[in-house]
């Protein structure tokens, strides 16, 4: 016969497992390669950040979201209900995709910018053994001061250029040439909205004028579009939409489509979200 205590233990234990998802062996023990408070002083190299706040993650998948990174936390894997709201405050980071500041293309890297070093360390500890889509993840802290600065300026440039490009082609060109460098005065929400409304499109025919492109895709609410780059074989267009739904529709309808049924014009669409 089971005693009362046993039943109590059982319900407590299972309840605990269910709500917190804590499983022994999922998180790394101390010592994950990052400097701890003990050995911080011993490392004195030039251009070295002892307490980094940015983690770098390399992936060829351009559409990972913040939720994907939150779901790596083992507690999220084993707990029954998703704990994302809790996790937001506990780990607190912003996800930044590395993008080409000029052409807006994804550059195979994600940056997780944490509020402080402690949160970074916590996250890096718990995700030591984690798998993202069955592949073991590997986060690298940005500890070189130049690398860190480069990442920040790169991102700043990207934002500025995007704001200009969304405004108009002329503004973008001025911006690119560094003539009217205007600091970004938009909120994150507005920036996100702008990213949602933007697309870059590869391989439209080179001889099509922007107005023709816009007329051809009349069904979509395109604000404006222009060529970012071209050479003999390929072209890259920037599309600004008036709403994100049309941008999403455009991507799902035209990504991978042969324009005019010609393999040469295989349209590739990338959203900036």
């Amino acid at each position, binding site marked *: 016969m*089971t*005693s009362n205590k046993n039943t109590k233990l059982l319900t407590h*234990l299972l309840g605990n497992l269910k709500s917190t998802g804590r*499983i022994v062996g999922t998180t790394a023990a101390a010592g994950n390669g990052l400097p701890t408070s003990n050995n911080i002083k011993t490392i004195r190299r030039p251009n070295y950040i002892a307490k980094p706040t940015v983690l770098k993650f390399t992936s060829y998948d351009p559409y990972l979201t913040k939720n994907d990174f939150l779901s790596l936390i083992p507690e999220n894997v084993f707990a029954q209900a998703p704990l994302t709201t809790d996790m937001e405050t506990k780990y607190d980071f912003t996800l930044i995709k590395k993008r080409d500041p000029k052409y807006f293309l994804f550059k195979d890297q994600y940056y997780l910018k944490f509020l402080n070093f402690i949160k970074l360390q916590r996250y890096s500890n718990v995700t030591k*053994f984690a798998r993202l889509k069955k592949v073991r993840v590997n986060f690298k802290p940005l500890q070189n001061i130049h690398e860190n600065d480069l990442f920040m300026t790169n991102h700043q440039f990207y934002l500025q250029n995007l704001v200009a490009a969304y405004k108009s082609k002329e503004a973008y060109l001025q911006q690119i*040439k560094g003539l009217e460098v205007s600091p970004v005065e938009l909120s994150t929400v507005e920036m996100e909205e702008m990213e949602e409304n933007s697309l870059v499109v590869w391989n439209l025919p080179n001889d099509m004028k922007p107005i023709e492109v816009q007329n051809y895709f009349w069904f979509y609410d395109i604000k404006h579009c222009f060529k970012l780059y071209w050479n003999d074989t390929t072209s890259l267009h920037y599309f600004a939409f008036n709403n994100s739904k049309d941008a999403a529709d455009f991507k799902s309808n035209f990504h991978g489509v042969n324009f005019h049924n010609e393999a040469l014009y295989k349209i590739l669409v990338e959203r900036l979200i």
Partner: protein
Amino acid sequence: MPLLPPYHHINKRLVRIWTRFHHGFCSSASRISKFSSSNGIILSSQAQANPTRIKLSSLLWRYFNEPGNLLFVTTNIIAFMGIITYNTLVNISREKYIQEGRILASLNSHFPDNVRRNEELPLLFPKEEEQSSEKDSLELLPKIVDKVEEENETSPLTIYSENKIPLVKSVKVTSMKSESIKLSLFHMIYSFQLYKSVLQHNTKQEEKGAASWNEEVEAMWKSLNMRDTKVKYPNTYEFYKSWNNEFKDAFTNPTKLENSYLPTFSVYPAPLKWFCDTLYGTDLKDLKDFQSIYQNTKSKSFRNLLELWLYDNAFLFQRKTTLKEDSEFNEKLFQTMIQDIGRAKNTQLFLRFSSIILKPSNPRKSVFFSDLNGYNVPSVSLETLLGVIDGFAELSKDGLYDYTPDVTELIKMLKSNCIITNKASGSGTGASKLRILLPYEDGSSSIPEISDRVKQRCYEILSQDKHTMETLNQMVTKTAQLEGQQ
């Protein structure tokens, strides 16, 4: 003899052709006029009679006098005018746009003085020759800008070289189902081990793991103040019931399954460590893999949990088509399990598993037993059926359960649903050729009719089978004893 020109005969022929042509033309024209006169649009009968006398003015007059013709011409003119106007307007706007672009381009070219702009289109950049000169104009900006620009200046086309792409170690391809099974099994055994460890904390029996495991046990033990518990052995059935209640559907979310993995099991106590290691090594794609885990598991409570789990989750192993060897294998697994459960005298679980054969509506039949060729119902071998009867006998030893109705039902099945298969590799005894059809739905209609001749032959084979006769004998004596007691 008249002097004929040298091409006289050719001339003659030409004249003939001409007349024929002319004549034919005229006749076809008259045909048209006859045809169109009924429409009354162009030619009247008078015009046909005297075509040369018609004047243009009178023709027009007549034409416009006909009803509808005036309207037809006017509409045409209006439409034509409309098209022309539209075309002009479009051209004007396009020209305006191009001109604006030209002006802008010429303005642009003023800024970095030495930059030559492409004339053809207003806004063009990265042309390689231009880039070098463009860089000069950026000199004023901080150095970092240069660095950023340098990185991205050349072209947006990223070139990936094969040796630079970091390839991950080959990852096993697994199905969602097998992942779900794995995770579910892991979670069940893990929770059980934790439960057991907390119960047995600070006793001789406690199975210790690495520091992190022990800490977890200690913390839980302290928080619940488990010092004065009397019972140190966990009840597997109780545990399973609660666990199943909480975590029945916990491992079905595809995103979670995609990110799931077995934790570092080296920190666990030995039995759990062993279990995780085995789990890690198998794919768990069918019952065969499950069987290998089950057979190798030594811990009685783990085995018991696996049995309980399998009964509830048998559907996860359901296959649309099963190979013959696999289906034989699945039946073997059923045999071992029912034998184990019978020996362990686990009445409740035994009743569950035997109901797979006894209850027509139990859907697990198709997981363990395959359909015979020609019959659309699952069937079991004689061995399996006798195994179940033996199990019932085992249970009855302690008087735990009155098996009579169930065994009677089984013997009835043996009597009425027995058939002979033409198994080519009939190994030795004839009894291996026998299969017993299982009713699939309620009512006997689901079983095809078996002829008396076949039944007769079945009985003959049965009567020669030692095992069958022994079992049946036992049953008869048992029943007699029970009746005597009553």
